């Protein structure tokens, strides 16, 4: 399964507010559901999402079982300089997906 879909403008003016949209593939199994035989389906969720802009953290979110599968997160930041925006999702069972995109700021 494709890991993540990232949508960031490729270029922006300095000081411009840009929107960052992320969509990541994950079942977000709550740990509260049971199978038809009564056994608990173990919890399997993303615990944390971190976005860094040239190494500096600009957005972080903690995830909990009530969040739907394939979480979509959109947020804004100010385009300050050209560089790399990196994304990291980490969670249960050693789950880790890292993505990064380049942005050029003029």
């Amino acid at each position, binding site marked *: *399964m*494709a890991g993540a*879909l990232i949508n960031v403008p490729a270029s922006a003016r300095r000081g411009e507010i840009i929107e960052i*949209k992320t*969509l990541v*593939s994950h079942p977000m199994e709550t740990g509260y559901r049971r199978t038809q035989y009564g056994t608990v389906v173990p919890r399997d969720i993303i615990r944390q999402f971190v976005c860094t802009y040239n190494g500096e953290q600009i957005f972080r979110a903690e995830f909990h079982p009530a969040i*739907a*599968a*394939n979480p*979509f997160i959109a947020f804004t930041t100010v385009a300050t300089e050209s560089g790399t925006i990196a994304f990291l999702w980490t969670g249960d069972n050693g789950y880790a997906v890292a993505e990064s995109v380049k942005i050029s700021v003029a």
Partner: protein
Amino acid sequence: MRVVGTVALLCTLAVPVRAVEIPPAERRSGYEFMSRETRAMQDDDAANPAMLWVLEGEALWARTAGAGERACRDCHGDARSSMKGVAARYPAFDATRGRPVNLEQRVNACRTERQKAPALAYQSRELLALTAYLGRQSRGLPIDIATDARMKPFLDAGRAAFNRRQGQLDLSCAQCHDDHWDKRLAGNAITQAHPNGYPLYRLEWQGLGSLQRRMRNCMAGIRALAPEYGSAEFVDLELFLAWRARGMKMETPAVRP
């Protein structure tokens, strides 16, 4: 007087109301019944979770499979041009089988006959990804199935299935989707049951699903025994639904509540 009234009421309930097909001008995609928020999810590819499957389908298209060591791309080239409008023509007549096949069966026929690879299971991630990727190439194009003489008996069988009462609730598809599509059932819009967005991401499923999965849901709802995935009865019904939605624009991969 009350007895007469009750008998009259029972008679009205017992007499099957003849379903009237929806005039073309009044047909509405499931999209039009959705909330603003769900529409926004479908409208923006960056927010549509079904695009995760489309991306995987794009990767599968280029990946070799089976003893033939061929990828879909080796025969069909770039899907963005070669597969444009193809999904909108399915179910289509297959001469070797002598009956219509749906897109899933077409993909699996290619796999077993050309790629010499095992068929993909219905509702498997790979088959959903490939059909979503194929469907995406027809987005915005009108549903355009063949309705020649070879197709007619299967189209008629699909129409009969659509109008046949079944299950413990003794309901036909038409009773909800032709006669009461403008009403609600337990708070949810009933809708007209057009197949123009499949495979689609259903929020209730938290994942992608095929048209046959959706039809099985309806059949469970009326407490009927659903046919097997890929059965002739289901394909005929798919064919009739496509005919019923002829000319409507494809939305694959759609989002539905």
